């Protein structure tokens, strides 16, 4: 992860020597003074432009990886991911609606500054809808019912999104660039916006990671072991959705991280969620930093949207993971 951070800060449209960058980063730690050999302008690039972006990528990646692992545990379904409960569709619609109906002053990225809030609200509304709809199928809301409800809510919101976009063709480009995922940001604003939600969400999930292992024996037996399976599930779902919504609101829809990262970790480190969750945070963060790096460097000076990069790496990689898993189990 540290290697990924240094590489992420060092390389970009203006390449800097990695050794000097490492020294400069170490200087940020109080009490450390190293001579990095970078000039003022380069130091500014490191601390004002690249570092915030890398930290944001780290945070978003860690959050998505962790939330993905949590969803997979809660639904006892290895294909569950952070966008399953309509979080993505809700956030998408929230931003689209804001851009279409409530023109605020345009910000740097072309989206109004209220976009994160709109995405966040949209995502939480979607999760709530999924929860209420899931309740129609009976009070106990089994994982299967919730997944089906999520699919229905996603489809409904996606239809709303299409309608909004079709009515406002002019704004299409801006919404589109957000939907593809973006980490283009200057300064620490987005990071600070995400940090409190990510902290709450990650703390809750990590504290309850033992219970995910217990849930894997099924609700009835988990209850026999003294758990309240439904309660644990709601807390975990709430926490994971909060974290996802916050991550989506600052970075758009970055797919595959929440799906691929926990899978890879499982392959490397076994099936216990006590291990999967913390490692998914680390690997998720590192993965997104590297993906962001690839997006910046490959088509330099232009940028490939990060959502495209993760999907490009993620989809084939996922095929490999599936193949390996099936070979191991046979």
């Amino acid at each position, binding site marked *: 992860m540290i290697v990924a951070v240094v590489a992420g800060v060092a390389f970009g449209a203006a390449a800097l020597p990695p050794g000097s960058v490492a020294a400069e980063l170490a200087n940020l730690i109080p009490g450390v003074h190293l001579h990095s050999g970078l000039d003022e302008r380069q130091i500014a690039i490191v601390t004002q432009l690249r570092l915030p972006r890398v930290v944001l990528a780290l945070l978003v990646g860690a959050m998505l990886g962790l939330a993905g692992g949590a969803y997979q545990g809660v639904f006892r379904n290895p294909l569950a991911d952070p966008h399953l409960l309509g979080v993505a569709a809700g956030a998408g619609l929230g931003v689209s609606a804001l851009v279409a109906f409530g023109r605020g002053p345009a910000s740097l990225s072309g989206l109004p500054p209220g976009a994160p809030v709109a995405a966040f609200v949209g995502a939480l509304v979607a999760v709530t809808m999924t929860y209420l709809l899931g309740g129609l199928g009976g009070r106990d809301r089994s994982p299967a019912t919730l997944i089906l409800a999520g699919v229905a809510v996603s489809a409904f919101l996606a239809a709303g999104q299409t309608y909004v976009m079709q009515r406002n063709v002019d704004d299409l480009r801006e919404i589109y660039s957000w939907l593809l995922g973006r980490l283009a940001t200057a300064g620490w604003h987005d990071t600070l916006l995400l940090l409190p939600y990510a902290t709450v969400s990650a703390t809750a999930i990590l504290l309850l990671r033992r219970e995910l*292992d*217990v849930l*894997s024996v099924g609700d009835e037996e988990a209850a*026999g072991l*003294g758990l309240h399976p439904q309660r644990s599930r709601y807390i975990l779902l709430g926490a994971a959705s909060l974290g996802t919504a916050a991550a989506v609101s600052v970075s758009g829809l970055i797919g595959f991280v929440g799906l691929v990262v926990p899978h890879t970790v499982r392959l490397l480190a076994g099936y216990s969620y006590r291990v999967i969750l913390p490692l998914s945070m680390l690997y998720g963060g590192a993965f997104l930093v590297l993906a962001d790096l690839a997006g910046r460097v490959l088509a330099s000076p232009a940028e490939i949207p990060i959502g495209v990069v993760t999907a490009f790496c993620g989809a084939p990689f996922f095929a490999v993971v599936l193949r390996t898993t099936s070979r191991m189990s046979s």
Partner: protein
Amino acid sequence: MSALSVDALHIALGGAEVLAGVSLDVDAGEWVTVIGPNGAGKSTLLRAVGGRLAHRGSISLFGTSSAALSRRALARMVASVAQSPVVPPGMVVSDYVLLGRTPHISTLGRESAHDQAVVSSVLERLELTPFAGRTLSTLSGGERQRAFLARALAQEAPLLLLDEPTSALDIGHQQDVLELVDELRRDRRLTVLATMHDLSVAGEYADRLVLMAAGQVVAAGAPREVLTEELLGSLYGARVRVVDGEHGPIVVPVRR
């Protein structure tokens, strides 16, 4: 002291009455096996005692009403092995057995050295130590049944509920598992409430049998009193011969 006392238990599942006024007492250290035809309510009775079903009537464990116990407290008193437990994909045996320690670990805490020690001693006792690192799904039926049992024993609960513990096993492994349960019962002074389909086996291992049909207790007592040709003939609709055996009556089905 009675380990379990069930009084006038009524349970309805999906609108149908599955248990219609069941009363039952099990003394501490006793092995009681519930027998009866399919659909008699045997498994439902065990699930209710495990605290997982809404019911009318009372269930008390070691003198305390189960309604007054929290789930965690209940899980420290009753450990159960379900009829066909879920096998979590990819989970290794030692992690699975460690799950049995859940009621002893606080919600936000982690397992202590004592919890680990309990797990290793249970694994040792059930001769599962060589399998500790193996994935549960790669074990044979007999090994897996021992792993299920190990998880329940790791709970260190004084009352053990076994729902058809041997239905998936061949006769050799059936005897292994039941002998093991009997030894553990003596070593650890456990109380065992089980359900079983094989009547001869049920009679050989249990102190007392409870015969259920249509949600009610029809007969209860020593195996010799319950396993009679008339009772079994009328309740199971089967023609059987009951022969006296070394450890209890042997029930042999005969063609009509």
